[in-house]
């Protein structure tokens, strides 16, 4: 079995998707972004991270996707210590993690379609499948007319939706989204949440960092509040 297949199987079959044990992250010179965070997120769960700005939500998401390395502690994704993975093994794991951060990380000189397709191209998906998936996602997010527009020419709300479409395009097993509805109106927010719910129904684990109470108060998802880098509370939504 190739390391790509074994990563995929581990992410699909395990019960726990994310395991964090006493994770801390300190920035130079002595700024503590996260302190002693311990957390388990089940496969297929939709999990909300809330808290004021600077509480450590984005840092937590970046640690989970290995874009940053913890100063202390252990982070496992589908049973793999993500900080010990290197080379192709790490790449294959990242192919199964969809991310949409606040800085969007879009290529402004490329079209909307090209930006969404990039996450599927790295997995060598069939061009026809890529084309179809891009059209479906643009349709779901009401961006059909922006297919050939350069992302640099879009509004922030549109760019946010493109980043979100890219994060779910490759049918990832884990989706990490940071403020997915920050620049959106109520009806677009609803569409975005529908899209994320569809991914959840398909078996994906979703972690959403947000300030938007309207999205985490619906349903019975777990909601973790961070304050000054520590867990302030861990409750269920709608309770």
């Amino acid at each position, binding site marked *: 079995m190739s390391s790509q297949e074994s990563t995929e199987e581990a992410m699909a079959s395990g019960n726990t998707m994310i395991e964090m044990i006493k994770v801390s992250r300190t920035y130079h010179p002595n700024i503590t972004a996260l302190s002693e965070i311990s957390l388990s997120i089940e496969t297929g769960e939709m999990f909300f991270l809330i808290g004021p700005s600077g509480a450590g939500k984005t840092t937590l998401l970046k640690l989970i996707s290995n874009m940053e390395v913890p100063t202390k502690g252990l982070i496992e994704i589908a049973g793999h210590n993500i900080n010990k993975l290197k080379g192709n093994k790490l790449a294959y794991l*990242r192919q199964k993690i969809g991310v949409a951060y606040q800085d969007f990380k879009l290529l402004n000189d490329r079209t909307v379609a090209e930006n969404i397709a990039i996450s599927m191209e790295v*997995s060598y998906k069939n*061009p026809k499948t890529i084309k179809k998936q891009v059209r479906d996602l643009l349709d779901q997010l009401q961006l059909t007319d922006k297919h050939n527009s350069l992302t640099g020419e879009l509004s922030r709300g549109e760019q946010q939706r493109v980043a979100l479409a890219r994060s779910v395009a490759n049918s990832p097993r884990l989706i990490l989204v940071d403020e997915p509805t920050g620049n959106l109106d109520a009806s677009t927010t609803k569409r975005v949440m529908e899209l994320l719910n569809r991914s959840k129904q398909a078996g994906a684990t979703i972690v959403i960092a947000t300030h938007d109470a309207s999205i985490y108060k619906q349903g019975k998802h777990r909601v973790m509040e961070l304050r000054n880098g520590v867990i302030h509370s861990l409750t269920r939504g709608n309770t």
Partner: protein
Amino acid sequence: MNFWFAVLRQAGRNLKQTWTSQFMTFLTVSLSVLIFAFFYLIYTNMLGAGDRLNDELRLIVYLEEEPGPAMQMQLRRKIENFDDVEEIIFISKEAAYKRFAKQLGEDSDVLDDMPKNFLPASIEVVPLKGLRGYNQIKLFSEYLASLPGTEKVQYGQEWVERFYYFTRLLTIVVLLSGTLLILTATFMVAYTIRLTIMGRQDELELLKLVGATNSYIRTPFLIEGILQGFMGSIIGLSALYGLFRWIISHFTGPGILHIFQFDFFPPIVIFIIILCSISLCSIGSYTSIRKFLKI
């Protein structure tokens, strides 16, 4: 979509995005290949001409007196003592006169009033084919000049000397142009790839984020280097071939090119030049990837 389709498309995007610097690098590589191959072509042709001239090289030892049979045996032994030779021919004064008259052809009547023994007797020494180096020939001629009864030794010293120094000069020029090729191919390509990497930092970061493998990210840059080397050498060699055809068609009358047989590179040399160019450009590309593409 397979790996090669994906990386080739990515390489195409790189080329499109930085086409101006890519084009300049391509021109530089082509020009370097052209300069190197031009001098190398002259060098190989000169070596070929030198070989052909050496085949016809003869050292003429002019003697003070015509040697008798016993003396001839002694001289033959002395000459063979120094080194084995291809052939030793004794030419008497009379035989020299006949040869000269034959060479004059219709004008041989100018010799009518001359005595038949006015030309000196000589020994024609044909050195072994292996005796190629200028210094060896010089040593041999000095030895022959030291033989008793020798008046003078001739083998077209000045011409051979000039030819030898010209070949040495060409060797230096070939080495210099080869160095130029190495420097331009590796450094220019390394610099261009570095520019491409710098200009695409955002995309490279995104590719890592969405799970692109190291080979997916690196291979397009390597392909760029290979393409620069391949295209540069093809264009450089094609330009040289055009120049070669032009020289052949314009200088095929009486002249230096008529004396020398002027040939283009055999296929194996063309293949080696292309391979070297590709390798050098790939090394340049690989160096930049290792240095600036942190994955």
